[in-house]
């Protein structure tokens, strides 16, 4: 901390402090992580340059690679926005994974079972809206429960969303192994039947998997930005997140805001699941959605909880995940190295003091804190 008074440091150029915080520091965090990751690859007997070249080629090397990167990015953007909205409202939604799974289950059910129940075909556009909307609602409700408990009983959302993750896991396992299991005699795994054609969200170009869900994700990012910074509700969410007492004095209905924030966060996470079902897999299968919750936290933090940042961070994570298999194919470096690099990114972003220290960037005294104990 004494560093802040560091004497006689003259810097040759100065960036606006806002840009340093939201742009330069995360960028340096990524860079540092890549360097450390490169060292790990070298220590394991690999060639980091070949590895990163493979990673880049796999992520951006062709039109198809680009398309696949957007396919990876779509759920990351939704889930990252979900966590970011929570953070803005002072809530740590660690349960995006459960909400995502629930959104996917609901969308799949509407996608395959609803026409049969109504006894009629549903027009394509309406069916997609119903399926995605149903997924959003399911995710939203799943997140609103811990929001409600936080608002009215003080039960901390971190522990409650973790518990809700386990409950969601058991519930979806039950549904996918039981009532919702694909009855096709050829099928042996826990998954739903395929959704009907009318519930498909189509790809943008028929020859690539790049789908409208990605464009929707960008749209949601804009919407989240508008909602958080241009509406009264957004103001209330941000005020509650910044200072609970101040929000109360300012006349914000804090309890309602907490529930709405979680609801909104869950809607975004549920949408991630619903889009995966309607635009990509056309069904929900057990085992999908593992790890998205933690990735989403890393993405929200790397994106500094700003929608634009979340989109960029999602693209970065998507490129890494998508390029990883190409990297493995070319260099036989295990894909786990990507997890290590991503964890390091998170470490350096969360503890940006470390990055500022290494690169001698003055720190603005701005602290980001959420945890205020588990109780009330």
């Amino acid at each position, binding site marked *: 901390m004494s560093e802040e008074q560091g004497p006689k440091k003259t810097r040759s150029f100065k960036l606006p402090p806002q840009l340093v915080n939201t742009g330069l520091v995360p960028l340096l965090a990524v860079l540092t992580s890549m360097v450390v990751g490169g060292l790990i690859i070298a220590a394991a007997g690999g060639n980091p340059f070949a590895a990163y070249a493979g990673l880049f080629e796999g992520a951006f090397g062709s039109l198809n690679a680009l398309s696949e990167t957007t396919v990876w990015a779509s759920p990351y953007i939704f889930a990252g926005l979900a966590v970011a909205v929570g953070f803005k409202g002072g809530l740590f939604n660690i349960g995006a994974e459960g909400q995502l799974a629930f959104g996917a289950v609901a969308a799949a059910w509407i996608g395959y079972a609803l026409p049969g129940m109504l006894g009629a075909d549903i027009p394509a556009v309406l069916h997609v809206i119903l399926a995605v909307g149903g997924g959003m609602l399911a995710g939203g409700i799943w997140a609103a429960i811990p929001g409600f408990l936080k608002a009215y009983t003080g039960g901390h959302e971190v*522990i409650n969303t973790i518990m809700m993750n386990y409950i969601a896991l058991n519930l979806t396992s039950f549904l996918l192994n039981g009532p919702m299991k694909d009855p096709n005699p050829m099928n042996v795994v826990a998954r739903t039947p395929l959704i009907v054609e009318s519930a498909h969200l189509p790809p943008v170009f028929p020859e690539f998997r790049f789908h409208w869900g990605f464009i929707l994700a960008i749209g949601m990012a804009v919407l989240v930005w508008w909602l958080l910074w241009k509406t009264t509700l957004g103001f209330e969410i941000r005020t509650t997140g910044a200072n609970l007492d101040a929000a109360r004095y300012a006349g914000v209905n804090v309890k309602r805001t907490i529930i709405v924030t979680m609801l909104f966060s869950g809607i975004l996470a549920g949408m991630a699941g619903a889009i995966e079902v309607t635009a990509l897999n056309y069904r929900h299968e057990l085992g999908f959605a593992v790890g998205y919750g933690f990735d989403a936290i890393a993405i929200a933090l790397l994106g500094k909880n700003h929608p634009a940042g979340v989109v960029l961070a999602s693209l970065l994570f998507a490129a890494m995940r998508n390029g990883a298999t190409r990297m493995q194919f070319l260099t036989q470096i295990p894909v786990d190295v990507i997890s290590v690099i991503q964890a390091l990114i998170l470490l350096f972003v969360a503890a940006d003091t470390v990055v500022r220290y290494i690169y001698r960037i003055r720190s603005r005294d701005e602290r980001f804190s959420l945890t205020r104990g588990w109780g009330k």
Partner: protein
Amino acid sequence: MNKRRFYFIAAIIILLYLIVILIGSAQISPLVLLVSLLATTISVATPLTLGALSGVFCERAGVVNIGIEGMMLTSAFFGWFGAVFLNTIWSVPPLASLLFGVLVAIIIGGLLGLLHAWLSVSLKVDQVIGGTVINILAIGITGFLNRQLFFEKNSIFGGQIPHAPGVLPRISIPFLVDIPVVGKVFEQQPIAVAAIVLVIVANFVLFRTRWGLRTRAVGEHPRAADTIGINVYKMRYWNVIIGGMLAGLAGAYFTIESVPSFEPLMTNGRGFISLAAMIFGNWTPFGAWAAALVFGAAQAFQINLQQFRAVIPPEWAFLQYSYVVGMVPYILTMVILTGVIGKTVAPAADGTPYEK
């Protein structure tokens, strides 16, 4: 732990046991069944107890530790690696290798505790985020190293699964072990015994010593503690390191006491359950232990019901679905958090970085 919570916990355990015994008595004598239930409960509860104690130390000092899972996983890996390395490469006898492995696990846990303390006390990073960093890092590092050290052809073990030095032997508690039938419960492995001893020690340390008083002071009211000359940072650092070491011991349970191998992700979320047990037990060592026993009993319940699937009465058929029963502990934790069953009170300064 308040009385109400204690009765609630006892009631749950007894209820779970009674259902199993009622259903199972068609096939097996109740006493044998009870012993089996107790044995399962204790072994499931061991890592949870240690993990929850880790949480108690950290949070009593005011530092939220959500990274218990990652600490356990990393320690499990390095502990196992240490034991195997000593045993196969340097031909150290199995028992000595295993004990060394336990030591390595504790040290690795302590180092991760140090990292967490540095992040949350010195750098004042949000503590939940610090813990999340540790969790994600643990998955990547153990997965990567497991591959490099045990699978790749040019690794020190030549790509072969090394012959493990086995697991820690059981020790019998004198006299008690001689009781017919029930005596079997008193034959346990060292870490299981250590967990129970540590509960008692932790309770003594936290509530009967100056160290404990200071720990609680920095967790409840760091400003006041600082004023009367307690070094808040130092207390927090040490307690988080102790917490890390306890999580490390929990990690050793997986690879050195339970099964002689490491598998990626093998802690399987038990660190998070430990956290729930800590809250369930209201941040007290005995409470955490009791809560760990509830989770253990729930696991025993579920395993046993599956074994008695054939004799479950039709009107209780839903109990056959392990998923349904699997949800119970998590729902219970959420119920506990609402404060319906006795107030759950976290240390006042829990999760708040202290600024001088």
